[in-house]
């Protein structure tokens, strides 16, 4: 880095008095991309800085301060200002400031995570804690691969905020720690929210059809037929973003064929998609289309439009995540009685019991490797993972957190209550497919839009869709420009 900064310096001085001839000469030189210009060029991406000497010195390690945070060091915290708002984080910041009265906390919330923070990563001066979420999320795989993140193991092994005899690690919901790992033991990401994926429906609508949530596919078809007779579609989904379909399809594949099938898919193993369980589930979904149980026009609807049609009672079921309750709050009628269920399976020969559900972390928090006050960032996370902060979050934004528990004593909304019940029913049978955070393009654009989307619009048969998706997966496995991951 040192030599780079010197080069910038000298080049800058040189260009102060550039005359016309020099300018021409220089642009000619640039056109040839000659060697001296190169160092100047590389300087634009990396303007040096960020040496270790800037880092805050460790504070005193005590029972109350297990991460040895420097009591007077400034903490900078950048939050994604999305569906969950910023109040919950501001409340947590207040607790931090109370614990370290000498420290100043610079808190900011933005939707433009990438545009604000990418330049700071490139300069080597990132903030201390980031909620890397939203449409402008920075690619985690790249951040990890380029060693830009701090290992959060010290946080996980620190005493929890509520109980000094319990490590933070032991207070978390299943799958949270694993989701933060990419290769090997280090944990790079702390997912704070906890999302339940599945099939969302109105209990009231089901009651009015004299039906209960179907456990086998034959029952599912029967319920849809009943609804069809009343002029209601069985299913709708975010047709323009068909990567919502996996929220119920992937756990169904897991239920029918076992966890290994999903792991093989995530690991991009050859022929992973050719497993009979995958075919059975694709056939089942295709039947919904064939029999006319999918709301007409669904392939042209986006997520909001499909949720609105569903909330208006035009369709019974929609694959979605627990955010739907908040996102569609203004269109879901008061007596809707929102509920979520684990996906319907094929029949009783399925490998995993009914109740097998997909649940995983959302709102990924990261501490950059080059943060000046990394311990402070982790301490802020430790505070957020306390029971009180977790309850505050759940009460304010209607979502669970990574903290296992934190729902007693607060009134839960119908959807949230149903989500908690679904998690209880699932017990150990929680699956966690990783394609959507490991291989974004493969999951969204290729499998989602070009595979499942085309199949559910009736433009591909299940066999064709599987062949196409397997082709995409093989391509991704061979692609050297992306980093590959495996289940541990």
């Amino acid at each position, binding site marked *: 880095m040192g030599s780079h900064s010197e080069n910038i310096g000298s080049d800058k001085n040189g260009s102060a008095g*550039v*005359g*016309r001839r020099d*300018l021409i000469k220089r*642009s000619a030189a*640039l056109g040839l*991309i000659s060697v001296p210009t*190169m160092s100047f*060029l*590389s300087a*634009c*991406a*990396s303007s040096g800085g960020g040496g270790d000497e800037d880092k805050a010195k460790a504070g005193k390690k005590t029972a109350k301060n297990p991460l040895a945070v420097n009591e007077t060091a400034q903490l900078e915290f950048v939050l994604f200002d999305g569906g969950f708002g910023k109040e919950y984080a501001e409340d947590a910041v207040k607790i931090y400031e109370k614990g370290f009265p000498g420290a100043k906390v610079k808190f900011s919330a933005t939707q433009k995570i*990438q545009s604000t923070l*990418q330049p700071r*990563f*490139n*300069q*080597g001066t990132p903030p201390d804690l980031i909620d890397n979420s939203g449409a*402008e999320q*920075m*690619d985690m*795989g*790249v*951040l990890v*691969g*380029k*060693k*830009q993140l701090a290992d959060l193991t010290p946080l996980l092994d620190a005493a929890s905020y509520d109980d000094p005899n319990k490590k933070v690690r032991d207070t978390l919901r299943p799958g949270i720690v694993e989701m933060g790992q990419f290769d090997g033991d280090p944990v790079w990401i702390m997912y704070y929210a906890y999302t339940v994926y599945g099939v969302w429906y109105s209990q009231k609508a089901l009651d009015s059809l004299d039906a209960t949530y179907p456990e086998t596919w034959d029952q599912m078809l029967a319920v849809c037929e009943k609804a069809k007779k009343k002029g209601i579609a069985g299913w709708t989904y975010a*047709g*323009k*973003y*068909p990567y919502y379909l996996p929220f119920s399809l992937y756990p169904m594949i897991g239920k029918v064929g076992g966890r290994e099938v999903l792991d093989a898919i995530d690991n991009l193993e050859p022929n992973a998609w050719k497993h009979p369980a995958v075919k059975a589930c694709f056939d089942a979904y295709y039947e919904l289309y064939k029999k006319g149980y999918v*709301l*007409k*026009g*669904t*392939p*042209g*609807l*986006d997520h909001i*439009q499909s949720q609105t*049609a569903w909330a208006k009672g*035009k369709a019974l079921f929609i694959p979605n995540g627990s955010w739907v309750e908040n996102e569609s709050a203004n269109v879901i009628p008061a007596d809707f009685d929102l509920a979520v269920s684990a996906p319907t399976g094929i029949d009783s020969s399925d490998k995993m019991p009914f109740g097998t559900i997909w649940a995983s972390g959302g709102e990924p928090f990261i501490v950059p490797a080059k943060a000046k006050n990394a311990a402070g960032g982790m301490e802020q996370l430790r505070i957020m993972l306390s029971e009180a902060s977790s309850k505050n979050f759940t009460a304010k934004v209607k979502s669970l957190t990574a903290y296992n528990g934190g729902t007693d004593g607060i009134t839960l909304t119908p959807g949230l209550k149903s989500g908690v019940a679904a998690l209880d029913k699932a017990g150990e049978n929680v699956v966690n497919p990783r394609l959507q955070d490991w291989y*974004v*393009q493969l999951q*969204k*654009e290729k499998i*989602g*839009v*070009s595979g499942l*989307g*085309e199949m559910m*619009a009736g*433009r591909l048969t299940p066999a064709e869709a599987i062949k196409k998706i397997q082709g995409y997966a093989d391509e991704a496995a061979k692609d050297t*420009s*992306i980093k590959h991951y495996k289940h541990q």
Partner: protein
Amino acid sequence: MQHGKYRFIVGFLALPLGLYALFVVWPFVQSIYYSFTDWTGLSPEFKMVGLDNYRRMLDDEIFWKSLRHSLMFAVVLPLVTISLALFFAFMINVGGRRRKGGPVISGVRGSSFYKIVYFFPQVLSIAIVALLFAFAYNPDSGAINSFFRGIGLDGLQPLWLGDPDLALWCVMAVLVWSTVGFFVVLFSAGMASIPADLYEAALLDGAGRAATFFRITLPLLWDTVQSGWVYMGILALGAESFAVVQIMTTGPGGPDYSTTVMVLYVYQKAFRDGQAAYATTIGVALLIVTLAFAAVVMRLGRRERLEY
């Protein structure tokens, strides 16, 4: 005096040229340089990889699809938009029926009203236009399908943006709608400067509307049409096409890659996949396509300039 001249000129040119070099030429040079690296865009470290990105691009099926769509945008959009705009402008300014006692040359009845109406979309931001049309195209409750249902065409309920055969045309229609007004105004201004006696002479010779348009208006308007063509092509290759595809389409870029365009692919590679270097490689390809487009239009459109 001669020796001071250059100093004088340089004194005037240094600042604008410097700014141009810093804010236009320099980013170009930078991105060409980055296209030879493996820069992710998320960390300051990268190394040179030579022509790897270019080799990868030539094998990339999605790149070729996006190139094909971009070329289609660049050919179809200017053709349709400019033809429509010329027609409208002609009708507004010249095409009217002769009325007793009125001027020899005039537009159709109510032309000053139309002029404002056509220009209206131009004052809306392209993002809003795209959103409005995304609602209109909603197959379940959108304006277009509701209209079809309203007039009894229940059987005709296309998926619009959800149909790979229709999606690209849907997107193009929005761009035509939102840009045609600008060209109507541009061409109207051009037509206003054509001397009325030329038209009068043509009328005396018995020329109808079509003959007047092709023999008088179009040749005298040629310079304006040509620059409009280049401008529209660059719009279609660049920012406007990105906005509508990103906001309106499935995926975006779908269904099944039927609407992906080069600018969208650059954006996705740089800001979704963390492959900034590869994105700049596609950007270089886009630069070449844009320059080639401008060169072709200028070359094909070269005509003798008419003085009047």
